[in-house]
């Protein structure tokens, strides 16, 4: 880095990112569509839509509904499957100078292991992000992400099945996120993605039915910002692992709050839908802000919370 331009690069464990702005899983597809309006190489990374071992059709529509300052989704993890990803999607993403993170999920330990093994060693894949917000159907629906033991076990199982850096994505719908963070760390996580969506629902009064076909869905968008910030605060108190801050980020102000609390990078989710240039603009805004503030490296900001 030359003397003047602020250095935006960050390290997430062994992974070096050119900047700390990443597109969040499920809000950026597999990157192809966005490449039509932006240069993906400008982004720190792209997390692709949650992959399972096999193709998934997903839930019946309606799959989204707006809520005050946010939205609910119940996509049901529709995806092209690990195979389809490797064949049809990854080769395209490899063309860009950006980190590619595969968000993965399963309904049993075995499914998690299978998809992790299938993706292991794939050229151009930077890391795995473990989506543990799914119920373990073998264990009678106990949630992988809300029970510390299951969190640790599924993390370890995937850890053992893959040589890729492993990010574990935590659910906010728990009594103590710090406990889950420690469980993921114990299982061998290299970093924590905080947070996934919160559970919510709405009712269509005219029909007296849930608006979503699946009754409830995941809440995302600006409305969840203060909750996400609090979860990052608690996670940072529980562990020294790198943190990817996620939730309600629209631009510079929100991203800075996450960095100050100790997030090492941020992911932009719902904003990609209503402001498709949001993540690219955030990279520019961060650079300019650092320059104005005389900050040479974004890392100076990370965890700079003043207390008392």
């Amino acid at each position, binding site marked *: 880095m030359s003397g003047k331009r602020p250095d935006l690069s960050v390290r997430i464990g062994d992974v070096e990112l050119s900047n700390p702005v990443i597109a969040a899983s*499920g*809000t*950026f*597809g597999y990157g192809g*569509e*966005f490449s*039509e*309006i932006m240069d993906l190489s400008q982004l720190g990374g792209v997390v692709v*839509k949650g992959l399972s071992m096999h193709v998934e*059709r*997903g839930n019946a*529509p*309606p*799959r*989204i*509904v*707006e809520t*005050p*300052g*946010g*939205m609910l*989704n119940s*996509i049901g993890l*529709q995806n092209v499957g690990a195979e389809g990803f490797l064949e049809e999607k990854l080769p395209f993403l490899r063309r860009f100078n950006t980190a590619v993170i595969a968000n993965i999920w399963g309904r049993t330990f075995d499914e998690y292991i299978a998809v992790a093994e299938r993706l292991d060693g794939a050229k151009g894949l930077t890391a795995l992000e473990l989506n543990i917000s799914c119920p373990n159907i073998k264990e009678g629906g106990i949630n992988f992400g809300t029970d510390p033991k299951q969190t640790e076990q599924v993390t370890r199982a995937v850890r053992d099945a893959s040589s890729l850096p492993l990010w574990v994505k935590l659910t906010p719908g728990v009594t103590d996120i710090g406990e889950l963070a420690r469980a993921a760390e114990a299982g061998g996580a290299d970093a924590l993605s905080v947070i996934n969506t919160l559970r919510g629902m709405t009712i269509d009064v005219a029909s007296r039915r849930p608006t979503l076909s699946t009754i409830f869905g995941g809440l995302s*968008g*600006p*409305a969840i910002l203060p909750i996400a910030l609090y979860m990052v605060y608690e996670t940072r108190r529980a562990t020294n692992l790198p943190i990817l801050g996620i939730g309600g980020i*629209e631009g510079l102000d929100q991203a800075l709050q996450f960095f100050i609390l100790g997030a090492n990078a941020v992911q932009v989710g*719902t904003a*990609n*839908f*209503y*402001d*498709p*240039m949001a993540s690219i603009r955030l990279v520019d805004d961060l650079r300019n802000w650092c320059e104005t503030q005389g900050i040479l490296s974004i890392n100076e900001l990370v965890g700079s919370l003043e207390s008392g």
Partner: protein
Amino acid sequence: MYDRRLAIESVAHVGPGQFILGFECPEIAAQCRPGHFVMISVAESIDPVLRRPMAIYRVLRDASNTPYGFTLLIEVVGCGTALLEQKSIGDHLEVLGPLGVPFSLPTKDEASGEHLLVMGGVGSAPFPLVAEELLKSGHRVRAFVGARTAEALLCVDDFRELGVPVEVATDDGSEGFHGYVVHPLQGYLESEDPANAVLYACGPTPMMRAVHEIAIIRNLPLQVSFEAPMACGIGVCLSCVVRVDAGDYGDWRYVRCCREGPVFDSRRLVWQ
């Protein structure tokens, strides 16, 4: 596809809760094909968060016939469209587009029968552009326009100006046929039995399903422009899926209305 912050250049109120917004943007205008849509912001705030999909209504061209802008024809149905109704000239909206798969229309050299455009309510919005394009390449066009009332009829004047014959139906009988717009269509097909007619439809799902059934029975091709709730409009959120036939064994899969559509061959869709 461009993402632009555009000033509203014109506002025209055309019926009860119906209005036309005009924009200047040569890049978007140059790419617009009949059936394309844009995603537009409705508020500067986060309430509501999402943009709204709107079909391209007309493409604006300058004296040398170069496209420099476009218009949207909008009907108020909920909070977002109500906010749009309050906008004035000079207000800004974020506009992403053009998006989606447009209607597939024959070229000048392709022979074809009469093109029958069937529409209900604000589903009329994309059809003046369809008619314009078809006429330009020398095809015959006829429009069947339905609405709740005479007041709420849309695009009838556009078609008349283009010289397209129009048949009208209203739910309350206040103009044209008293009933659904599929009846005049049905009647026309029965009395005239036009050879190689080609069908297009956009409107409420029951109406499009009825047209689909006519198309099946009479063995006529039909393209429908489908409206699904959309969060992103560009194919990344998977919120707008519709069922299409997966070929063998009567199986089906989901495709994205915003990307694989909004215009579909009606026979590809699974009409539940």
